[in-house]
């Protein structure tokens, strides 16, 4: 094992020396300005690759699940952020509905300890969940029939083509009046509650649940109920308030929305679709692949296959070049002078975002108990459980975290590449190559791999252009790097798993 460690160290240092030589060579042949410009482009791409790859590698490392839906989650993050930034009618219009449903489902840990203690005959034990699920469907129909989701989804699309810059509110259309709308969240709450009743298997003595955390659960439930009511009441006022906000603040909130959405979406997907399939890897791969198609089609239906360009927030949008960082911070210029090169400030922001994510990930993995559990779980989840840690919950959190990171990448990319249903595919592909290159399960490997691939793409593009070769060479370069590394070291740069 020590010998193996040594070889790994040699290999990694060799790889870095090679990179350094290549970088210096490129610098010498290109000259400073093109070199800086190309490197920064490479870092921007690498940063986005990393945001996709980090989640992929964490999820694979801990749970052995290859998440083919990760690109779709990247895309969903972009769509959610774009919606929030351009016209949040869709988000605020539907939020009370699904939040009400989630609140209902959250009754599960509170109801279950009581329900399983009920004395029920066997036939009732079988019938009650079915009855509950049937009622759930009825409530869902009551709650959702006639909701004009398409129209709400359209608002941001229309906003892009018709909104006058000075009046962001011109596209806020009227919605269903609260006097008739209130029944919908209520029906969805009841549908959620029925799901909770069905899922807790009343009367089943083999089930187990504690009410240890009852007070904590009740507080969360109260919080959810209050949030749902507030969102229901201010359903129409909130989009207006958001659109009247300062653009930079709105963008920050859009990022937060995308990340929060990614986290919740990841949790729901893990609990409902991935969790039952941990013992069957092939099935979980097929499941994520299927999810990717479904998500893509739903986005197709909601927002049509058209590509949208999200407007850059004002902090990155004023025309003109800033000479110093300070000047940029004051004026919000679109470009900045970096070592004599004019470079878009928004791309610098993406680089900073990626670096911030990497640093937070390092802190999470090395300094917190959660990180310790993840590192231990990568090796032996069963033993982690035997220490008294709820590994299933950790799996859910890590999956949600991975999806949230992909969503962050999505909203980060949205003002920079067109928002369209296939935008995640390219990043999923590059994300997989990154993960394989860096070593399955290693987040440091994902970072090094992402930066390497981003650089390869940028320099490949540059040379292809200069030597008038096909740009396909740049795209192939990432795969070639992966093949070379895999030939020398099959487990990837930082890989420990085979």
């Amino acid at each position, binding site marked *: *094992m020590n010998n193996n*460690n040594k070889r790994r160290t040699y290999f990694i240092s060799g790889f870095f020396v090679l990179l350094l030589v290549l970088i210096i060579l490129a610098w010498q042949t290109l000259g400073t300005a093109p070199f800086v410009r190309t490197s920064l482009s490479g870092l921007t791409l690498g940063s986005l690759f990393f945001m996709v790859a980090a989640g992929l590698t964490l999820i694979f490392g801990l749970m052995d699940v290859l998440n083919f839906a990760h690109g779709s989650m990247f895309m969903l993050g972009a769509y959610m952020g774009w919606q929030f930034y351009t016209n949040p009618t869709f988000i605020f219009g539907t939020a009370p509905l699904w939040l009400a449903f989630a609140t209902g489902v959250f009754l599960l840990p509170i109801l279950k300890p009581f329900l399983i203690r009920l004395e029920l005959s066997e036939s009732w034990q079988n019938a009650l969940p079915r009855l509950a699920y049937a009622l759930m469907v009825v409530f869902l129909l009551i709650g959702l029939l006639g909701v004009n989701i398409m129209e709400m989804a359209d608002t941001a699309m229309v906003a892009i083509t018709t909104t006058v810059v000075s009046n962001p509110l011109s596209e806020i259309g009227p919605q269903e009046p609260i006097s008739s709308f209130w029944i919908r969240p209520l029906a969805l709450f009841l549908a959620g509650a029925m799901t909770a009743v069905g899922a807790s298997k009343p009367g089943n003595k*083999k089930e*187990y649940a*504690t009410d240890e955390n009852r007070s904590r659960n009740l507080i969360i439930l109260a919080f959810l109920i209050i949030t749902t009511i507030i969102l229901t009441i201010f359903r129409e006022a909130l989009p207006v308030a958001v659109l009247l906000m300062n653009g930079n603040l709105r963008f920050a909130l859009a990022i937060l929305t995308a990340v929060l959405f990614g986290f919740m979406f990841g949790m729901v997907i893990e609990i409902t679709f991935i969790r039952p399939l941990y013992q069957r890897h092939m099935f979980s791969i097929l499941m994520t692949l299927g999810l990717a198609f479904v998500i893509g089609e739903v986005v197709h239906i909601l927002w049509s296959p058209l590509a949208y360009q999200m407007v850059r927030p004002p902090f990155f949008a004023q025309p003109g070049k800033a000479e110093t960082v300070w000047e940029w911070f004051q004026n919000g210029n679109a470009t900045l002078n970096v070592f004599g090169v004019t470079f878009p400030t928004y791309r610098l922001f993406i680089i900073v975002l990626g670096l911030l994510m990497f640093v937070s990930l390092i802190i999470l993995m090395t300094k917190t*108990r959660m990180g*310790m*559990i993840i*590192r*231990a779980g*990568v*090796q*032996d989840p*069963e*033993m*982690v*459980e*035997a*220490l*008294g*840690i*709820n*590994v*299933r919950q950790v799996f859910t959190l890590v999956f949600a975290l991975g999806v949230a990171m992909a969503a962050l990448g999505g909203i980060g990319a949205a003002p920079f590449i067109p928002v369209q249903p296939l935008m995640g595919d390219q990043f999923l592909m590059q994300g997989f190559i990154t993960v394989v290159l860096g070593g399955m399960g290693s987040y440091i490997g994902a970072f090094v791999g992402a930066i390497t691939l981003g650089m390869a793409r940028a320099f490949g593009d540059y040379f292809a252009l200069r030597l008038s070769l096909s740009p396909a060479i740049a795209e192939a370069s990432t795969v070639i790097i992966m093949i070379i590394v895999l030939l020398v070291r099959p487990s990837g740069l930082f890989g*420990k798993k085979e």
Partner: protein
Amino acid sequence: MKQTQKTDLILIVDHIQTYIEQFHILQNVSVEVPRNSITVMLGRNGAGKTTTLKSILGLTPPREGKIIFDGMEIQGKRAFNIVNLGIGFVPEHRAIFRQLSVFENLKLAERTKGDLDRSGDFIFDLFPDLKRLIKLPGNHLSGGQQQMLAVARALVPENKLLLIDEPSEGLAPILIQQMMEAIQKLSATTTVLLVEQNFIMASQLADYYYIIDDGKSVHNGLMKDLIKNEDLVKEYLGATAGKVVSGGLQ
């Protein structure tokens, strides 16, 4: 010798049957562990001793039968819930976390904040080596040090019962001696259920024995009675163990 009374039992495994995938591994295992004693499960490789421990922990939940720990039925509960009732587990093959440092391995075993501060002195008193190695990653430890860490990890929270799987496996004789002394010291404050292939070690440590054979518990009683019963030992544990009993190896 301690008297066995029903009320004194910390763990009752009552006729459990466990399947791993389609294989019927445990066909009928019953074990009773008296409080503040050392009970050892003996038997050939593949007899189902490790599976019995894992069934108690809920890692391979039994399909039939009851498990009562400290007066509470625990079969069917999730493993982390069972463990949190006060069971420490030392797995076979010293499954410590190799990517984590010794300190992190111990810290991870905490159930409530400050467990390690409370039990640290006791642990480092038992295994002084670990204090010196505290910052080293797990994969830099020798086999013996890894085994000590695996035992130490189970001592971080306060446990009513320790399940220890093959503590002597692959250890040098001097380390086996040290491990035996450590387990002896532990039994002063807690109860130990041991799986052990090394019959010398088992016979010197344990108060009670169970013999598991082919997924069934076939014999049990006081250890001091088993040592006298050469035929029984030979039948289930092989000739080497039989020699120990007849005095050949001691």
